[in-house]
């Protein structure tokens, strides 16, 4: 005899959203591998709990430092370091832009023959591969300690960002004006001036303001390897456990970054 199940009690199949990875083997395999990796990673993470516990009291000092930042006692170092960081940012952004525009034009496949394209793409890849601090080590060896090494570092690193995005912008732009100018018999330079630049200039200015922002942040750290800016002062403050001085420097950096972000945003809104 079959029990009659009332309709309202019929088991209702629960809908669940489709999984992100459709193949179940791949999905579970990835999960399993991820779990195994995490296990391995955490088990090799050597944590010295005694040192961490000792550090907790120091973290209170850090908080106290942030509540009462000490701008005064090392004001001279802070002021010259911040000024150096700012000037490095300005100079590096200008030089970086001057280098990036030709390289970016060369790295756009729609504008240039293959050898030039490959050369420019190679430059971009080289500039993007290494972190700023590693490039800074190179330039410090080349031109000695000081802000010039920082300027060269940031200019070089700017190429990887500005030229790459400029090239992508050019490759994605409308081909119609390019063709129109080309049919008038324009030279390559005229093509760039009248067909390419008007289309990508607003975007380029936006990218430059972004890069200015990034350069300011990076200029605060290349000092760690001796390439000028506020980084060296900050490192000294931390290694002496002068947390109130370090807090003052960090607050200045945060304020400056925030100000440039707001300024850059305003410029981008006006142009685009």
């Amino acid at each position: 005899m079959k029990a009659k199940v009332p309709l309202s009690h019929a088991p209702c199949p629960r809908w669940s959203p489709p999984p992100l990875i459709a193949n179940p083997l791949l999905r579970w395999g990835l999960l399993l591998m991820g779990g195994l990796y995490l296990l391995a990673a955490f088990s090799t993470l050597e944590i010295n709990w005694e040192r961490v516990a000792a550090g907790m009291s120091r973290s209170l000092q850090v908080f106290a430092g942030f509540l009462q930042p000490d701008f005064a006692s090392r004001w001279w170092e802070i002021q010259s370091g911040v000024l150096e960081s700012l000037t490095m940012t300005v100079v590096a952004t200008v030089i970086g832009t001057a280098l990036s525009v030709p390289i970016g034009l060369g790295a756009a496949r729609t504008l240039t023959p293959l050898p030039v394209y490959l050369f420019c793409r190679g430059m971009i890849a080289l500039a993007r591969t290494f972190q700023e601090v590693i490039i800074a080590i190179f330039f410090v060896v080349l031109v000695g300690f000081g802000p010039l090494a920082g300027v060269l570092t940031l200019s070089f690193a700017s190429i990887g960002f500005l030229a790459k995005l400029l090239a992508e912008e050019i490759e994605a732009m409308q081909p119609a004006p390019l063709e129109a100018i080309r049919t008038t018999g324009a030279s390559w330079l005229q093509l760039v001036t009248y067909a390419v630049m008007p289309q990508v200039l607003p975007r380029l200015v936006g990218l430059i303001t972004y890069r200015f922002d990034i350069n300011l942040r990076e200029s605060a750290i290349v000092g760690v390897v001796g390439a000028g800016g506020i980084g060296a002062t900050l490192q000294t403050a931390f290694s002496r456990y002068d947390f109130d001085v370090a807090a003052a420097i960090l607050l200045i950096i945060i304020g400056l970054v925030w100000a440039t972000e707001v300024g850059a945003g305003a410029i981008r809104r006006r142009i685009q």
Partner: protein
Amino acid sequence: MPVSVVHGHKVWQRRDRATALKHWLGWIVGVCLFMVCWRIIAGATNWFFVWDAPRQGSEFFGRLFPPEWSYVVELGRPFWDTLNMATLGTLISVVIALPIAVLTARNTTPHPLLRALGLLIIVVSRSVNSLIWALLLVAILGPGVLAGVLAIALRSIGFVGKLFYEAIEEVNPAPIEAITATGASPTQILSYAILPQVLPSLVGVSVFRWDINLRESTVIGLVGAGGLGLQLDAAVNALQWPRASLIFLVILLLVLLSEATSARVRRSIT
């Protein structure tokens, strides 16, 4: 249309006189600013060393090659540590950034004050470079991989959180309305209307940040946070350039690997 008259003929101009003057003024101020900044940089530079750079450079490259290949056996552990700092740091930051993003996005925030708090956390985290976070954490927790993991995580929260909340703000409101109409609770709305829409961009952003973090985790060792940077610092300080060049090669390998992985993952998502 701005027109000037030359010899009785009308000539088209791009800008009228006032805007042209403003334009020139902008250029002059910009050039002056650049010159002043350059003066400051040049004043702080020891030019003797700069003119010496070509000789230094050729000597330097001579010292870099050939790399000390046998040193590679000692790099296994730092390589693993670097990978872990990037991966665990990114994971921690994603876990923390997700609730912050939900609190910060205009369409899901429970209260404007919480939104302001979320924005503050994001700005502070983003403004401070991971190397500086590492300086701070090494001073608190002592040198080691843990400080590196946390430094990477603290820097990434702002980046990931910002892109997450922007993705949440851009969702299509229609599914939210539909799910709300069924009488769903706020968590159900979040998991059935918002999450499916933003999931691809969440994964994309996380992988993108992981790619960036791998580069950064190669250098935060310079301030004592473990990984390849620690070895690099030791090699550079001891002027063991053949070792340094091998570390550069390993970093290059790591970066290429991460770039390929992240490009592949992002391509398969979109």
